[in-house]
């Protein structure tokens, strides 16, 4: 019997607003411990939350991009549980009336489109951070830093719609691309600004009921999510094959050991005692505001991919690579605007630019070479001022120095020799020194001219304009044969 994997994801994305969701403290990552806190986010006695408008705007952006319905009326609830990183020992969240629901995100699997349903997206506040063991050097104590407490979060809850690791990976990648495109989350998993939890179960192929599911936490990178799922898939399948049952529980991924282990001290089902947050008033999303946000949404990766293919005539593969992130696609389109040859630009961006960025471990935003530089270089090629071969050197030089193409070519003396009189001399010299090839050519071996062109290029160290060389060689050789 074969087993089918069933995965649903819960994604926490920190919104990159300037201030926290309910107070004015900065959301910046990496500050000195407890330096980005105030009475409100520390949950001191007597404080009250006030909602950051931009948080709502960002959250709506995400919901629209994920094709959600936006609730006209929503509100906040308190989720009550005790944990040292949770200052009030309740988290302000949305349980009864989340602001967005019934959405989806498409992924493409082997050329076919698959739809992953999103159950709901809700707003909440992040908790602080507990440090244990090796992070503290303390054997019997833990330490708490509240800088992160109150950073705005959206939680995106999918339906259990993913049935392979590839689908999970595609979904995670697409989701990240969307969030980055929207400019609402920096998606730095290593800093915790994008976090995944997975619900995983297995069921016999063809069975429609869901099996007992395990909730997995502590997944700090895409790779870890996939590794953990793979491990857990195997573990659950083995249990089922042996006729045992999978315990529905919460498990942690242990990266060092490469295995999952049950979370201790969670033997009882949690009872969060949700009730409406009395300190915040209802959120009623005005249709005008919604319209405004809708109109301000940037083009999303999937739509852009389709448009680029159509508009610039580039293959699907190119378009997918170029739209993988917004700054890269912006770079591409800006270059094409200055040099309207889609395919040529995409070749240079995909091969040379991405290659070099990878070598130097740089992001496209940090590239010293700008679209105007690349477009200028491509224009030089088109105008026959440099050869394709020289262009690679020009590119390297531009990438290192950040200088423009014309300046590089000028400084290095890399302009093609397009001056006929200067070239004539070299052509005549080559003819003189290669009587054998001249003879071959004149004897009908037309291919012999390629060798002669090569010789001219060698003499000029590649700077000769190949078309000009060809033209001059033919002229000379024909004159000679008539003699």
């Amino acid at each position: 019997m074969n087993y089918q994997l069933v995965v649903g994801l819960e994604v926490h994305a920190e919104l990159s607003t300037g201030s926290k969701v309910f107070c004015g403290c900065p959301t910046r990552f990496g500050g000195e411990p407890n330096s980005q806190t105030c009475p409100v986010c520390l949950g001191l006695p007597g404080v009250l939350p006030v909602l950051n408008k931009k948080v709502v705007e960002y959250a709506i952006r995400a919901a629209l991009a994920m094709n959600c319905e936006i609730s006209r009326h929503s509100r906040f609830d308190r989720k009550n549980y005790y944990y040292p990183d949770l200052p009030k020992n309740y988290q302000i969240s949305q349980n009864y009336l989340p602001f967005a629901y019934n959405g989806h995100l498409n992924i493409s699997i082997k050329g076919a489109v698959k739809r992953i349903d999103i159950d709901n997206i809700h707003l909440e506040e992040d908790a602080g951070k507990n440090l244990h063991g090796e992070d503290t050097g303390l054997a019997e104590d833990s330490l708490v830093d509240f800088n992160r407490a109150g950073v705005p979060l959206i939680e995106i809850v999918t339906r259990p719609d993913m049935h392979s690791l590839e689908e999970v990976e595609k979904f995670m990648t697409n989701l990240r691309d969307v969030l980055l495109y929207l400019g609402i989350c920096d998606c730095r998993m290593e800093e915790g600004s994008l976090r995944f939890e997975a619900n995983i179960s297995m069921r016999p192929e063809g069975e429609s009921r869901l099996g007992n599911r395990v909730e997995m936490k502590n997944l700090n990178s895409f790779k870890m999510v996939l590794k953990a799922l793979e491990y857990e898939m195997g573990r659950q399948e083995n249990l089922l094959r042996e006729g045992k049952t999978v315990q529905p529980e919460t498990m942690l991924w242990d990266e060092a050991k490469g295995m999952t282990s049950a979370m201790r001290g969670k033997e009882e089902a949690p009872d969060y005692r949700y009730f409406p947050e009395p300190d915040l008033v209802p959120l009623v999303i005005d249709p005008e505001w919604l319209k405004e946000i809708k109109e301000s949404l940037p083009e999303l990766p999937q739509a852009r991919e389709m448009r680029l293919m159509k508009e610039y005539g580039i293959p699907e593969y190119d378009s997918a690579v170029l739209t993988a992130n917004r700054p890269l696609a912006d770079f591409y389109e800006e270059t094409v605007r200055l040099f309207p040859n889609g395919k040529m630009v995409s070749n240079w961006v995909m091969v040379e630019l991405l290659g070099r960025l990878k070598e130097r471990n740089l992001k496209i935003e940090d590239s010293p070479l700008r679209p105007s530089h690349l477009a200028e270089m491509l224009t030089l090629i088109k105008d026959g001022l440099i050869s394709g071969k020289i262009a690679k050197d020009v590119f390297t030089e531009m990438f290192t120095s950040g200088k423009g193409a014309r300046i590089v070519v000028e400084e290095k003396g890399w302009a093609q020799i397009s001056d006929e009189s200067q070239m004539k001399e070299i052509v005549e010299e080559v003819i003189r020194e290669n009587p054998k090839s001249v003879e071959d050519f004149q004897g009908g071996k037309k291919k012999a001219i390629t060798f002669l062109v090569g010789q001219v290029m060698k003499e000029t160290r590649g700077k000769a304009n190949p078309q000009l060389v060809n033209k001059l060689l033919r002229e000379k050789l024909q004159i000679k044969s008539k003699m």
Partner: protein
Amino acid sequence: MKISKKDVEHVAKLARLRLAEEEKEKFGKQLSEILEYVKKLNELDTEKVEPTSHVVPLKNVMREDEVRPSLPVEDVLRNAPVREGKYFKVPKIIQ
């Protein structure tokens, strides 16, 4: 409405209150009486009544996304029962 000892223990655990045996009994009895009393609400049919969470007719109270100064770290930690450097210190948390 009689609250069992088990209920009392469950609620005490949820509320992070450790109760002595005689307190469990005392609270159990008192809570049972109170819950018996509040049963009188069931005399009313509230099928079609909207709940009141807020008495104020307010909605969409929001602030602009402006960063304001945080508290100086010393003020943050001044009231801490136990601290270690710039952190709050607590007994070891078992995950």
